[in-house]
């Protein structure tokens, strides 16, 4: 295990703990940026999808992992971001470079609007309220047909920034880089939140509201801010999702997506940026993994390709059940354990992470 000798407070404030860590993340950055040269168009598309889900996951993670407020309704904000982005382009003729951040802003404001009446709710009640918001949004999209084109849906135009086209099919590499740039930006913002008073006030609200109050943290406002930041990021992901899918309607952002998003960050590992990315990989790559293994099974058994509808969600659910039972800290928690095992080899003890506890907590209200 590496011992870091700190010589100034900046050692705890900087983005990276030591130069080797910075080196590893630098390498990851380079590999991720070079992906368009390493992968074919199909797999590049899959990884673009992973990044979009990771952005959405980071959005929800700010709320659930950092602030301890469970939301089962984040698909609503994916929808808000997606529709706002496309409508701003189509109806107002704004360029993507403006409509995209504005879509995030709109989704953020929508989040604050939802947060104001619901911040008094705890745990399970908040989860149900956000669930209702998700369902209501689904129906509202249908009702607001003149604007949203109802169940028929809308087409997302090709993105054009200063004359350069970003299209999922025509220019997949550029589209990937665009998404990658947004993801990196969000990661930076997320890290900055974590190392500033804002992130600490989130943690304070998550762990003890009374105590946060006594420290001078305005609990209701902090929750609203967390909601706003969370839904703004989710909204940006929604906007990208729209461009990625090309066509979308109310069903694109239904309640199942909300649930999937929450399950995703739990599988990935609550409370960490890594968790959002790990979870996104599971969600976005699972269908491909299933398809590949199905073909393999078909070849081996000689029965051809067998399609089982609904296998994806079921497998996803089963993975989640196993994680909650055996590794509540998610893939990231398991990753840390494996890393520690090798760092300390052969001195790792099973009980080293014994005191770990789940991030989410609620107080029972009878």
């Amino acid at each position, binding site marked *: 295990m590496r011992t870091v000798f700190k010589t100034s*407070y*900046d050692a*705890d*404030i900087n983005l990276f703990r030591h130069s080797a860590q910075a080196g590893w993340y630098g390498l990851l950055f380079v590999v991720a940026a070079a992906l368009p040269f390493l992968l074919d168009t199909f797999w590049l598309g899959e990884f673009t999808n992973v990044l979009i889900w990771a952005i959405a996951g980071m959005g929800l993670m700010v709320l659930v992992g950092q602030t301890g407020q469970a939301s089962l309704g984040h698909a609503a904000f994916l929808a808000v971001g997606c529709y706002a982005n496309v409508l701003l382009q189509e109806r107002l003729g704004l360029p993507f470079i403006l409509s995209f951040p504005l879509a995030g802003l709109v989704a953020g404001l929508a989040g604050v609007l939802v947060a104001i009446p619901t911040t008094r709710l705890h745990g399970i009640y908040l989860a149900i309220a956000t669930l209702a918001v998700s369902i209501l949004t689904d129906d509202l999209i249908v009702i607001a047909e003149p604007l949203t084109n109802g169940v028929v849906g809308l087409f997302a135009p090709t993105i054009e920034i200063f004359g350069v086209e970003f299209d999922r099919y025509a220019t997949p590499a550029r589209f990937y880089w665009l998404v990658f740039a947004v993801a990196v930006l969000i990661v930076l*913002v997320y890290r*900055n*939140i974590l*190392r*500033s*008073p*804002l992130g*600490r*006030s989130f*943690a*304070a609200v*998550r*762990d*003890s509201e*009374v*105590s*946060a*109050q*006594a*420290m*001078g*943290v*305005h*609990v209701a406002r902090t929750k609203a*801010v967390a909601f706003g*930041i969370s839904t703004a990021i989710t909204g940006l992901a929604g906007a990208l999702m729209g461009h990625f899918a090309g066509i979308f309607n109310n069903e694109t952002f239904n309640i199942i997506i909300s649930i999937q998003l929450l399950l995703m960050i739990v599988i990935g590992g609550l*409370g960490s940026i890594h968790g959002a990315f790990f979870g996104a990989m599971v969600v976005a790559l699972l269908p491909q993994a299933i398809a590949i293994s199905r073909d393999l099974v078909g070849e081996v058994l000689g029965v051809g390709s067998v399609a089982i509808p609904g296998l994806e969600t079921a497998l996803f659910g089963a993975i989640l059940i196993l994680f909650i039972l055996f590794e509540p800290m998610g893939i990231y928690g398991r990753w840390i354990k494996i890393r520690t095992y090798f760092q300390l080899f052969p001195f790792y003890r099973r009980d080293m992470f014994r*005191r*770990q*506890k789940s*991030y989410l907590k609620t107080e029972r209200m009878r």
Partner: protein
Amino acid sequence: MSLLEIDTVTLRFGGVVAVNQVSFAVEAGEVFALVGPNGAGKSTLFNLISRFYDPAEGDIRFAGDSILKRQPHEIAGLGIARTFQNIELFEQATVLQNLLVGRHRHRRGNLVNEMLFTPFVKAEERRHRAAVEKVIDFLDLQAYREKYIAGLPYGVRKVVEMGRALAIEPKLLLLDEPASGLSVEETQDVAFWIEDIRNQMGITVLMVEHDMHLVSSVSDRVLALADGKTLALGTPQEVQNHPAVIEAYIGSSENDEKVVA
């Protein structure tokens, strides 16, 4: 003008009168202790000062101004810090992060520059860190800086909570049973700390404590409460020998033994 004035405060929970017409004043620079049996209303008084409850009658003034028009989160900003009887730390954060939350009232950054982590925010972080390090040195918490609260023993948590309150840089520190559950040695440390907090940092201390030995060794004045009512006010010796106090503790005035426990 007293630093903190509790002026004929009454609080009822349904039909129960938790605090009944209690009045006292804490002067700047003193260590003031509240004693009394369980359910006497001591912690309730703390919660009233923290504005978790609204009193039915009376007024609470801090540095001359009524705090009743303040919100709970504004109390820390006035310079009142507190600890909790059943430790309320941020479990999934490190000791350092816990102490830094105490610096929240000194936060000068805003949403935007914190998300961008501008040089200003970075300078602020260094400043907060320097302030927190002073508290860490004072309370000997160096070994625990990076440790998560969830894994810390009880005694250390108590100290961390006191540290978090000190990080606020308060004028008035409310300590809710600082020595409960601590060993004799740890209690001795607490006694020294309380004296230093008053003498070196110039912070006024109001504490609730059951350990009469600690109370008599550090406090200037003591208020005894029972069933939400004031029994006696005076120096530790005066209060311990007060007939009403002895009766409240022992249950009968025939027994003139001193209250020690």
